[in-house]
């Protein structure tokens, strides 16, 4: 792939996927500002890795895999930083209350809160399945996992969220 072809393909990825990718990252990190910054990093990574893209995988799953890995790394670093600095990451309820770009009702607020309590990988699986309606086969390629374990992971995440909402008298 020459320079021009790489640039064209990159621009195509920006045009086709940037909005969907934003929502995927936003589901994972919660805040608009973090998602905005992280998306820049993800696209720089895509640009660097694009010459090595051989077309063995679908472009869509390749892009989503980079984005998911970068987001999981971001969440891991954020967790380590909070442990080292003895600062508690503000809980989901506080973040939602402060977020000017949250427009859900009370039920959605509790759903997001429950979602943020999940481990990062479970949150990624749940978000890809629940919000993006993605097939397990595609998620398996993105997460480099088996369909069986992803189904189990989604089921566990679903049950945890359901229990959390039930505690607040909301059916899920």
């Amino acid at each position, binding site marked *: 792939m020459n320079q021009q072809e790489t640039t064209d393909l990159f621009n195509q990825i920006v045009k086709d996927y*940037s909005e969907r990718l*934003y929502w995927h990252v936003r589901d994972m990190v919660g805040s608009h500002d973090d998602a905005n910054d992280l998306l820049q990093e993800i696209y720089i990574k895509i*640009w660097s890795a694009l010459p090595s893209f051989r077309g063995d995988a679908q472009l869509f799953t390749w892009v989503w895999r980079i984005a998911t890995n970068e987001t999981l790394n971001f969440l891991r670093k954020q967790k380590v930083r909070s442990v080292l600095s003895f600062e508690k990451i503000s809980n989901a309820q506080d973040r939602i209350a402060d977020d000017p770009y949250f427009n859900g009702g009370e039920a959605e607020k509790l759903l997001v809160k429950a979602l943020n309590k999940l481990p990062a990988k479970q949150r990624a699986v749940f978000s890809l399945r629940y919000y993006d309606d993605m097939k397990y086969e595609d998620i398996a390629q993105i997460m480099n996992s088996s369909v069986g374990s992803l189904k189990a992971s989604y089921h566990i995440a679903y049950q945890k969220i359901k229990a959390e909402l039930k505690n607040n008298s909301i059916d899920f």
Partner: protein
Amino acid sequence: MNKRPYTTPDGYFDYLQMRLSQIPEQQQVQETPQVRVSRWAKITPYFALVACFAIAVVAGRFILDKTLTQPEDDYVTLEQLYSADLLPYTSQYALFDESYYEDDDYSYEITEEDIINYLINTNVPLNYIGQTLYE
């Protein structure tokens, strides 16, 4: 597909696409051109380091040779050291009286004059010295 309970600022996705499209240009500016380095250029610093070390060793050896003087006769030096070690430094006579060493048997006879000098030096009253010596 379930609806997300979030929004974004107005016109955000147009701005996002515009910003992300600039990445190739920005990254190409940041990439520095690769400078080809020859093998000789790579090993030159190591040669320079070895040469500096060799010069330091030779110069150090030369300076030490010039500044450190070796004793001409080892035997004399050892004898002097031997004498110095044997010096009975608690004895004032050994320190100041050369005849102390000239006597083969190192014997020393205490005279009456020595006793008087000693008593005077230790502040014994003269009348007491006279009484003691000449009674």
